[in-house]
């Protein structure tokens, strides 16, 4: 089952604007990751935030995590046409028997208009 739910499902912005995507999840997690998927391609890992962190930066990306609200947000600043892709949050939780499971949300489809 899908653990995370991204919001909005689709987002269209002009180049240079900021894009914010939100993710909510249901159960306790060890950490949360964001991935990008360009059309017709595999997923690329963007950033990981641990459950004891509240904010993390990587280049033009800023991720926040609120474990009390079970939510995370991804902010892309100064967007570029190349940022056009689908963005997924993925939660990692211990699934027993010494293994961890990665569970993806449905994703936000971002379109950046040149």
């Amino acid at each position, binding site marked *: 089952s899908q653990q995370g739910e991204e919001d909005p499902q689709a987002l269209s912005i002009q180049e240079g604007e900021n894009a914010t995507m939100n993710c909510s999840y249901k159960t306790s997690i060890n950490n949360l*990751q964001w991935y990008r998927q360009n059309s017709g*391609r*595999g*997923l690329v*890992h963007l950033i990981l935030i641990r459950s004891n962190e509240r904010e993390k930066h990587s280049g033009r990306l800023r991720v926040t995590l609120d474990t009390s609200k079970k939510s995370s947000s991804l902010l892309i600043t100064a967007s570029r046409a190349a940022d056009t892709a689908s963005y997924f949050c993925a939660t990692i939780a211990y699934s027993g028997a010494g293994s961890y499971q*990665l569970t993806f*949300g449905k*994703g936000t489809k971002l379109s950046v208009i040149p």
Partner: protein
Amino acid sequence: EAGVAQSPRYKIIEKRQSVAFWCNPISGHATLYWYQQILGQGPKLLIQFQNNGVVDDSQLPKDRFSAERLKGVDSTLKIQPAKLEDSAVYLCASSPGLTAYEQYFGPGTRLTVT
């Protein structure tokens, strides 16, 4: 560093036929995953291998899906017989260890069942 390789990239079959997908992970990565991604949704984990042993296959429809990892390196995923609802992109991913903190995805195989 070579990425995760998958073949074929596209496959069209009729329902009740069989199909097999192949994955070659990044060299040295102990953990390998197969995901199913239905159009408009996030990837769903089907099976996770640690070396050549199965760690988690709880979401694999075992009546028709099977997977193996040969000598802890390459892996094949088979569907027999295929149903219309199996139409999806099948993604293979690998990671260096069991904790799955960062996964590296292949380009996927797009399966269409008619």
